[in-house]
Each structure stands twice: as structure tokens, then as C-alpha cells.
């Protein structure tokens, strides 16, 4: 079984994003970048499927500028077999990303595509579902367990009320939630080996798709800041404040 894993290069999750002074966007100059944490979980899941003998080949794909080679190499060091970079300087929305990915799916015919549920920059939570629609495949989103059996995959999903399990016909699309697995670190020998694994580059503009967005980003602002609060000395003082100052409890 071939598994395709789309990975995105994003701001490191430990870094607090700052808004540019001219309010046009977030300032990413000299900011530490990394693989989106949900994509790391997706790569890890694919590698585990390969270790179990379920997956035979893992292909990773990233859409963006040349700098995402860094994240593709990381994925190769973690156990992916080959990588595809779809080169574009455009700041694409999830729909355009899903369209490009659907082209890759058409070419590669993976039986399983594992994506992150959400990228931590745009916080869209859309791409996997859109890819499922465009390829007419079933979707198992926010997965905390993935079990491949015969020509189906059982996906346990983290939903608002608890957990839901669905059974999907393969080929299918899965998106990862935080508790699916704990990603490993790449070992030094594997990082060296990854340098020799194949990484193909395609140019997004040559893939015959309309990539312009009809969503205009008008402004990016700082969120309203909370007024600094006070420290209280005791439980008694806390209760007094909550009752008489904040008036949130009786």
C-alpha cells in the first residue's frame, strides 16, 4: 500500500507570532520555522504502517517555496521513501493546496493520504476534507487511531462529545489529531541517509490549475490585550474579589 503524506512548513509552535507594524500580515522574517506538528504526527503514522508491513512506500509532498526542502528532508529522515516539492511563491489557500494535492493523488494513486488536521499558522482545518471531496474519497478526520484492515480503514475520531469510529473504503483520506501517536526524532545516520533519497521538484504554475485566491486579506491586527490583573494573597481574598469586584459568583 502506498501512503502519501502532505507536510507543511510553518512557524515553530513555540514561537509567538508578531503582527507587522503596517498591519498587512504576520512578520516571519528571521522566525524559526518547522514542520507543522500535525504533519509530524502524519509522517509518524505512515512510518508505523510501514514498520508493520501495511505500507510499502511513503511519499511526502510539500507545497511552497524552496525552503520547504528542509521539512521534506526531515520527513525523509523520519522514514519516508521519497519526496515531491511543488514549487510556488504564492501564499495559497487550502482549496488551492487541495487542488494541487489532488493532481499528485491522480499521478501517484496512493491508497491512503494522511494529512495534519490543521496547520498552526492559518488554523484552517480544511485541506484534508477538501482533498477528499475533490478525489471523491471518504475522510476520517481528527484521527486518534487508524487501523488498516483488508480494503478498509477504521478511524477513531476525536469529536466534541468523545470518540467516534468510522470505517472507510480504501482509498481514503485521514487527518491526524494530537493523540494519534508521539512522533520520534530523526537519528543522525538517518539524517545522513535522507540526503540521498529522491526529491522531485514540480512547478505549481505548470500544473494546469487556477491558483489565484478570491479571498482578500484586508488587514492583520494584534488581538485585544487583556488588562494586567492582580495577585491575591489567599483563597479568602480571591473569593472576596470574585463576589464583590468581578461579581461572577454569588
Amino acid at each position, binding site marked *: 500500500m502506498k501512503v502519501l503524506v502532505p507536510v507543511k512548513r510553518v512557524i515553530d509552535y513555540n514561537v*509567538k*507570532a508578531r503582527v507587522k507594524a503596517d498591519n498587512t500580515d*504576520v512578520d516571519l522574517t528571521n522566525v524559526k520555522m518547522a514542520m507543522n506538528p500535525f504533519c509530524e504526527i502524519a509522517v509518524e503514522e505512515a512510518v508505523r504502517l510501514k514498520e508493520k508491513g501495511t505500507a510499502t512506500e511513503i511519499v511526502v509532498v510539500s507545497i511552497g517555496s524552496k525552503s520547504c526542502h528542509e521539512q521534506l528532508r526531515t520527513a525523509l529522515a523520519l522514514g519516508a521513501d521519497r519526496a515531491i516539492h511543488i514549487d510556488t511563491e504564492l501564499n495559497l489557500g*487550502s*482549496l*488551492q493546496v487541495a487542488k494541487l494535492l489532488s493532481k499528485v493523488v491522480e499521478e501517484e494513486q496512493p491508497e491512503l493520504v494522511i494529512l495534519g488536521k*490543521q496547520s*498552526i*499558522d492559518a*488554523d*484552517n*482545518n*480544511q485541506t484534508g*476534507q*477538501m482533498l477528499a*471531496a*475533490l478525489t471523491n*474519497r*471518504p*475522510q476520517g*478526520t*481528527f484521527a486518534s487511531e487508524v487501523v488498516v484492515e483488508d480494503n478498509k480503514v*477504521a478511524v477513531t*475520531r*476525536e*469529536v*466534541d*462529545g*468523545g*470518540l*467516534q*469510529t*468510522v*470505517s*472507510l*473504503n480504501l482509498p*481514503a483520506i485521514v487527518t491526524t489529531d*494530537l*493523540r494519534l501517536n508521539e512522533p520520534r526524532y530523526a537519528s543522525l545516520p538517518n539524517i545522513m541517509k535522507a540526503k540521498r533519497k529522491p526529491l522531485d521538484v514540480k512547478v505549481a504554475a505548470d500544473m494546469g490549475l487556477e491558483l489565484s485566491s*478570491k*479571498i*482578500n486579506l*484586508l*488587514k*492583520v491586527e*494584534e*488581538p485585544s490585550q*487583556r488588562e494586567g*490583573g*492582580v*495577585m*491575591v494573597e*489567599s*483563597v479568602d481574598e*480571591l*473569593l472576596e*474579589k*470574585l463576589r464583590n469586584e*468581578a461579581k461572577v*459568583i454569588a
Partner: protein
Amino acid sequence: MITLLVAEHDNSELKLDTHKAVDAITKMGGDIHVLVAGAGCQSVAEHAAKLQGVSKVLVADHDLLAHGLAENLAPLVVDLADDYSHIVAPATTTGKNFMPRVAAALDVEQISDIIEVVSSDTFKRPIYAGNAIATVQSEYAKKVITVRTAAFDKVSETGSAEIVSLEAVADAGISNFVKQELTESERPELTAAGVVISGGRGMQNGDNFTLLEGIADKLGAAVGASRAAVDAGFVPNDMQVGQTGKIVAPDLYIAVGISGAIQHLAGMKDSKVIVAINKDPEAPIFQVADYGLEADLFEALPELETKL
């Protein structure tokens, strides 16, 4: 201009997320229709017909829709889409699951998680875990939107819309529901509660959450958790508050043994009053707390419960 809102419910109860999404749509202007898709969901439709501002409720009542499978629900919404300028759902796990499937089928970019309506085509939404707020405008003829319900108020139940039944739905035949394990609780739901008390890694284990439950019962509060507490297996996943869990904005949020990572703050910093109880005076949670108590939670919580 007519908006189709896909209701959030569990076949027996209409969720307040729906009431709040109606508030958001009211700010966009135009007529509002609500789709209740489910199985045995007539009473939900009757409830939805009371939401102030809703003029029509469409009911699709069929076994295939019982569990909100995106493969069956999305085509139903897409079939209805012709008549609507806006298609909206609350940004719950149900809405997040099927709406992008609808958007892609309509060749429209979805706007996720709006927190403010600027006009019928312009919205504000948080990005980067809420560290920035983007104002975005959609040039699409049809707008596909999910609403962060914590940012809106619930509309009243003073309306009386007509209820229309829809014809049978089709089975996409590519997915099946197997089972669900829902957390049973007597307490209010996290996203609907006026008071939320959450515990983090500092709680040390699941049993210690009873310290929070005693207080929650006295305050009529819901109990939440940080990701660290969920990952460590103290409590189930549906209790996670944060960027990638539930977003809450109650009148009072009490964070106990939670350090205040960016991802946790993203889920609760719009609460009206925030209380933090932590033994580390440097914990970042104190920077967003209105009232901070530097204390050992194992001493502070029993005292708090007794004195409430």
C-alpha cells in the same frame, strides 16, 4: 440574500452552538434557513423553528444522516446550495468535518472560525493560535463559513418558522459509522457553560480531578483540561481546551495547575474573568489572569470548595 445554517444537534437536542451561529448570521443580514439533518430529529427541527430570525427549517430525517457522516451530509448541503448566498455551520467537530467538503465541491474557499462579522462578505478570524486577527473578504458569489460560537451570543427562542421536510438522501456508499463512545456528564457542556474550571498537568492524576468537580458542582461549572492532562490520560480528549481543542469564553474561567502555553491560552483568553491557581509565580498563565493565586493546588482547592 438567504443563508443556510446547518444545525448542530445530537438527534434529540438542538445545541446552543446553533443559537449562537444564528446571531452571527443576523449580523450578515438577509433571510435565515436552518437545515436539520439527522435521524429521528423532528423534535430538533421544532426547536430550531423557534430561533429568533429563522424563517424556514428544512428537515432531512434519514438513517444515513444519523451520525453526520461527511460523505452523506456534504452532498445534501451541496444540492441545496443553489438557493443560498451563504452556507454556514458552527465550527464544532461536525462543522469542521463536513463543511470543507461542501466548499471544495462548490469550488469555494471556506472561511473558518469567524469571530466577527464586518459585513456580508467581510469577516474577522483568528490565525496563529489567536496571536493575530485577520480581516478577510470573500469575492465568491457563495460564502462558505464556519462560526466560532464562543464569540457570539445565543438568540432567543421567540420565533416560529415553517418546517419543510426534504426528500430522501443518497448513500455515498464509501463510509460507515461503527461506534461512538460519548462522555456522560451531569455537568454543563464546556462550550455552553458560564463557568469553566480546568486542570492541567499539575493535577498529577485523574483521581485528583474530583477536587475540581466538587467546586464545579457548587458553581454549576463545566470541567476542562489542558492538553498535557489529556495526553497523560487523566481525563478524556473532549475536555481539552485550546487552539486545537475546544474554544471557550465563559464569564469565569479558573485554570488550576496549568502553565499557560500559547496553545492553551488560544482556547480561553476571551473569557470575561480569568483566575489562575499555580505554585509557580513565573507561570505565563498569570499574565492573562485577572486574579492570580500563587498556591499549592492541593491546599487551595479544598479550601475554595469549603468556602464557596
